[in-house]
């Protein structure tokens, strides 16, 4: 079994900010049903570009759920500029670390956030839905390459 930190388990078992967010004015979506993980992030941003509320819907493993929950907690109260600097490492750190095979689950949080911010600012991100397939498998591929390197 994965060596999940207590914080990960806590955020998986009692996730914060679950569900659609009434009055959300920024939505970021990443992943798909096909690739096995997906995240829909809802933000309520005020006129000063401050995130006053956030929520999520996630389909994925325990660390995907925990990462989503952590992300919403991290960014609540931030300005969009500050939120834009949040990385998947910040999410993992907030959770007391993720197993290295599961780091990509936090990448999904970062990706959805980027899209939500773009959505608010009316910027088109030239990515097809389902892009996460590639990101997901990218990480996996890297891990495989890594493992191969380690072995030989």
């Amino acid at each position, binding site marked *: 079994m994965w060596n999940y930190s207590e914080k990960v388990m806590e955020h998986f078992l009692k996730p914060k900010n679950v569900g659609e967010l009434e009055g959300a004015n920024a939505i970021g*979506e990443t992943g798909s*049903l096909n690739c*096995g*993980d997906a*995240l829909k992030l809802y933000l309520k941003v005020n006129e000063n570009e401050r995130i006053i509320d956030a929520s999520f*819907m*996630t389909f*994925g493993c*325990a660390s995907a759920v925990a990462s989503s929950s952590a992300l919403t907690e991290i960014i609540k109260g931030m300005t969009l500029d500050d939120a834009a600097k949040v990385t998947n490492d910040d999410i993992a750190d907030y959770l007391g670390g993720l197993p290295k095979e599961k780091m990509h689950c936090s990448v999904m949080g970062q990706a959805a956030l980027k899209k939500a911010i773009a959505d608010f600012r009316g910027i088109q991100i030239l990515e097809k839905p389902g892009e996460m397939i590639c990101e997901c498998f990218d990480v996996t591929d890297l891990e495989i390459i890594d493992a191969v390197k380690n072995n030989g």
Partner: protein
Amino acid sequence: MIYIDNNATTRVADEVIQEMLPYLEQFYGNPSSMYGFADTVNKKVQQARAQVAEFINADPGEIIFTSCGTESDNAAINAAINAFPQKKHIIATEVEHPAIRSLCFHLQDKKGYKVTFVPVDKKGRLDFDTLYKAMSDDTAIVSVMWANNETGVIFPIAEIAEKVKEKGIWFHTDAVQGAGKIPIDVKAAGVDMLSLSGHKIHAPKGIGVLYVRKGIKFSPFLIGGHQEKGRRGGTENTASIIALGKACELAKANIPLMNTQVREIRDYLETRLLDEIPATSVNGDRGNRLPNTLSIGFDAVEGESILMLMNQAGICASSGSACTSGSLDPSHVLMAMQVPFKSAHGTIRFSLSHYNTKAEMDTIVETLIPAIDRLRQMSPFWKDGKVV
């Protein structure tokens, strides 16, 4: 704790531990040594060989002890390759265990072999047409598993073996999952080679069997000393061999139980889950399945999350073959069956043993109902009681 992952591995039966312990503690001699101390061990190893043979209706001389199911599978293919060095084609199925499947990929990628992977339909049933048409003079071996580890779907081995043998081609079957759940009779089935693994039938891990029909020109996979009549090098794993003998004796006696009590409990679990959790479906041919296996998909939720919530309740199940867990893709078996992604990702395999009880099934259902509900509530693909 509720352990319902018996297709992954099983609890070692108390009787089996009792049987093997003296051969760890006291009678540690090499069975082939020249002293009386070794004789005790040797006799017991012979008894175990007879017990295993009896279990599958083989002759004791046709039993080769190996270290696991994987070794048995590898050894079977290796024997065919060595016996027919000029033949460069192998037939297997798309749903074989990695012990056959990955080996086939290796032979294809590195050793110049062509492999036909016979596909299955949506219920996991073999496409016999493809299989039979693929057979040629270049085919060294056909390997078809007796029953699938993920779905429990049973293949008609006797029927396939007959067709394959008609062409003079060697036929191997991986009976690692069939054994102990349904009757296995190598003579009636007419197979040339057959693999077993101890830890799937309440023996310890690290012991397996390759049955090799008398008359088959076998060459060893592990090359070393003269053990196993020169068919498998390496000092005999005496304690585990003795354990496996006992486990086979017990497994034989338990097969009726598997097909009554265990099947009923499995069916009870299946019915309750299908009835009480919406958007739930069974993977594999329900009419022709191992009595202990239930592969079931919950739409719009992800398997690992389900496992984690079950783990909180002390329930041990798996989300696919133990070998593929940790990977992101649905298993190759579910992919081959074209199970839709929405339920493939949310598939859980329950695999029972005779140690499981009906009360445990109730606990599982009562754990899963709220668990699936909670996960669906946070799933972006679930809305108003259905998949979106």
